[in-house]
Structure formats: structure tokens, C-alpha cells
């Protein structure tokens, strides 16, 4: 697992793009990073007359839906983008991946990251954070998941009871909330 090394020479010729978050923080990021966010990319394509490289850091792209804390995490994720989001073949490898995913904050943070990645149309990031949230709810109780997602159970009690009986083995060994 090799992390993409950071650009050794940050002041190199690669163009920079400035992103402005909902709390008015400015982030100067490399073009390659910014272009991973399709929403940002689209912004440029919509204004095709202007050359991205030439305009460089003079361009400020407003991201009114993304908070600075979230964007910082997303950018740090971009810098060490994992090779693949695919489920690993062996158990140890998958556990390593899970640990890696766990580093990106609380489940609440993950929801923010997912929302931001969705808004920015950032496919790999969305997959990654979805997976991280899936890790979190994986072995939780149905009640916990309902609470977490703000969902009210709408099955008739007898329907739910019947289902739980039929698939009793799927409800065994639930983690504590």
C-alpha cells in the first residue's frame, strides 16, 4: 500500500486553485486535487473561455455547502488516496483497510464527509466514506441504525417478529451501541 507521495516541491509549476468554504475559509489546492471533485471541474468547464492554468490561484471557487473542517479532511484523503476501494480478498488485508477508514473521524463526521463528497461529485471519496460508515453500522443493532439514520420502523410488530425469527442467525452477536 503506497501512499501517493506529496509533491516535493509545492511551489512547482502545477496550477493552484482556491476553494472557499461555507465558513469563508480559503483553501489553496493543487489543480490535480481539485479536479477530482467533478463539481469543481464542471465549474471550469462551464467557463471554458478562460484558461484554468493561466488564471491559476486568482480563481476562487465558492463551495457554500462544504465546511472548512470537512474540506480539510477531504483534501487530506485525496493526498493519500488508497489504491482501490474493492473489498479485499483476505481477512487481514480487509482489517487493515478498515483501520485506515476508521481514521477519518466519528460516524457523524463521516456523514458530513459523505454529504460533501456527494455534493462535490467525488466518486472515490464517496465510496471510501460510504464504506467507512458501513464499517461502523455493520454489526450494530437494528434499533441503533434506526436512531442513527433517524428512521422510524414501520413494519407491523408481528411482521418484524416473524422476519427476525426466520433470519435469527442474522441477528446474532450484535455489537453494543
Amino acid at each position: 500500500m503506497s501512499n501517493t507521495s506529496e509533491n516535493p516541491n509545492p511551489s512547482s509549476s502545477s496550477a493552484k486553485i482556491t476553494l472557499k468554504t461555507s465558513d469563508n475559509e480559503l483553501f489553496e489546492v493543487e489543480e490535480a486535487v481539485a479536479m477530482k471533485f467533478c463539481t469543481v471541474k464542471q465549474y471550469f468547464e462551464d467557463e471554458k473561455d478562460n484558461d484554468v492554468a493561466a488564471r491559476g490561484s486568482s480563481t476562487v471557487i465558492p463551495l457554500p455547502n462544504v465546511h472548512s473542517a470537512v474540506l480539510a479532511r477531504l483534501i487530506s484523503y485525496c493526498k493519500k488516496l488508497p489504491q482501490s476501494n474493492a473489498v479485499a480478498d483476505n481477512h487481514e488485508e480487509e482489517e487493515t483497510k478498515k483501520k485506515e477508514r476508521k481514521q477519518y473521524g466519528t460516524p457523524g463526521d463521516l456523514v458530513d464527509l459523505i454529504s460533501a463528497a456527494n455534493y462535490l461529485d467525488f466518486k472515490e471519496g464517496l465510496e471510501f466514506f460510504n464504506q467507512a460508515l458501513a464499517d461502523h453500522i455493520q454489526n450494530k443493532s437494528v434499533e441503533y441504525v434506526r436512531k442513527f439514520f433517524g428512521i422510524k420502523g414501520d413494519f407491523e410488530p408481528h411482521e418484524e417478529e416473524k422476519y427476525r425469527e426466520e433470519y435469527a442467525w442474522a441477528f446474532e452477536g450484535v455489537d453494543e451501541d
Partner: protein
Amino acid sequence: MVNIFFKFTCCSSPRCLETLNEERTRIANKETKRAKPEIAVNKKSQEKISISATQQSIPLDIVMEILSWLPVTYVLRMKCVCKQWYTLTQDCHFIEKHMSRHRIKCSYNKIPITPPGNSQDNFQLICGCNGMLLKKRIASNKFLIMNNATRQMLELPDPHKNSFEMVSLDLESESFKSTIMPKGLFSNWEKVWALDWNGCLSFAVRVEEVINVVVLEDYKKLKWGKEKIVIPLAFTNSTPNLMEDLVPLFAQNGLVGYIYTASSDDVPFFNAMIMKVALESSSAKCQPELRFNQEVQTTDLKNEVNFSTYIANVLEELSSETTDLKNEVNFSTYIANVLEELSSEVLEGFLLIFRLSSNDSVKVIPEISCPQT
């Protein structure tokens, strides 16, 4: 709530998607409480859905993505969170996505056989593929297919050796249907193949230099077409050997796909071939036009039935003009692979197991049982 997540389920997708979209809109409209400033998350539809720390309302398409990363057991658990999630996880898009993310890791001969529920029966494991196991109930000699991940079982019908009968699996109801074939359809059933005719099941028989086809026009009413359709085989004139082992696999929009054996240095190999034919033409002699002819890999194939589904896959990949077939095949290979083992190893009464036909989103995998002479 039976038949949950049986992997050969394919619900009719457009309807499901509609429901999802409706639900999505409903959620969006319903959201009123806001603990945090609003964040627009669904850029494409320009909807604004609020997210709050306490009430985390995530759009349904994202929920689907999240759930698709869960192993099967947990998906089964999450099905009872609410009706919406239940529907979501039954959706064929979800199932496809889930399957693409989780490779089937089990090797069937290592799996302990655990009869589900209060069943006292003992099982004998016959074979397995794609996560499905074929088992025999020792007491009753009945065969069943079990989805090892969900532990669901589907009992297979007995072969009826004394009548022309078609047994099909209806993927909508996930049950077997049995139909007596019309009498006098073909005089000799030994040379009959099941054929995919524009997505419908049909039977084909070769009569000299043509193939006669009878199509099941309406699967639900079991209505067979009255006229036999004629596919000319004029191209075999130049290579008479072809006549012997040419097997038609599908006919779609004037393209007919065949397989046949060929040999090089006495090593036989299979070729796939697609011909363009003018079916409207009254002359059976009109020259079909060759579109594709190539050897196909046979490394992981055990027998011809499995082979036919495989070939159909290969043909589609190679012929851009038959792409419509692809989805059909994906669904059917799943169970066809299991059934084919059944046919070759266990129940001699089943002569043909082939892919599916579809009509009004109903899909069938037909088998024909023939009288053994």
C-alpha cells in the same frame, strides 16, 4: 416475507426505481427540523436535503451505496430497519451492486451443511457454484438449491420422464412452473434445442438445410406461436461437417448465434459464429452473411450446457449488435450454472437446460424432460 434476497431474484427494475425516486422526494419534503445550516447534498436533482447531527437524513441513493458495502448477513439484518430499506435491498440494482462488491469467497466443499430451521433432514452436497449449493435431501431424494449466504432453499421439481414437459423457473415468483408441451410440435425431440428468440423461449429443430423454430409468444398464457419460423442454413453447403454439430444459441434481430466444434491437430475446440439471416425471405436458400466466427476459450467449462451460457456471454461481448442479451444472461447464468450440474450429473430426465426467455419482465429458465427410450 419469504424469498428475501434470493439471488436469482430480478424484480422489474423500472418500477423499483420509480418507488425509490418517489421516496427520495418524500424524504426531501418531509425534512423540517434543522440543527445545522442546510447542506445541499443532491446536486443533480437540485433538491436540498438537510443533514443534522441528530437526524441524519441521507439520500436514499447514498443509503443504497452504504448498504452495498455490508456483508450479506448484515444486509439481511438491515432489511427490517424499515419498509423502504427492505424494498431498497430487494432492488435488482442493489443486488447487482452488492454482488459486484463482494466476491463469493466460499468454496462449496468446505462449507458445513447446516439445515436451516427445525429441519431434521440430512443433506448430501452434490455441487456448488456462484455461492449456490445443490443438495439432495437424503430421506426424500429431493433436490434443492440453497443460497449459502442467505440460507434460502428452493426445492427442485421431480423430473417427469413420461411426458413432454417443460419446467421453468419464474424469477418473479421464484417458483417452478410445469407445462406439458404441445403435442406434435416436433416429431423427434432428440434433435431439439432451446433457443433464445428475441428474448423469448423457443425450440428449434433442424430439418435438412433449415432450422425450424417455434416460439413461446406469451409466457404467462403459455401461448406458442402457430407458424414455424425457418432459419436457412445455406452456408453449411460449403462445409458439410458443420451440419453435424451446429447448435443454435440465440436469434436476435436477424442475427443467429451458433456454436460448433472444430479441430486442429485432432484437438477439438469450440467455435462461435454469428450469421445475419434474412428470415422474412421465403427462400431458404438465400445466403446468410457471416458476421463473426472465432474460437472460444473453454478452460473453465465442464460441459456443454454450462458452455452454452458461457458462449452466449462471449458472443455478446464480441458482437456489439447483440448487447441486449447481456443482462438476460447475467441473471440466468446464476442458476443455470447450478441447474446444469443437476442435469448432467443427477437427473437424466432433463435433457436441456438453457437460458431464459423474457416476456413482460418474467424470466424463465426452461428445461425439457423427455421420455427416455
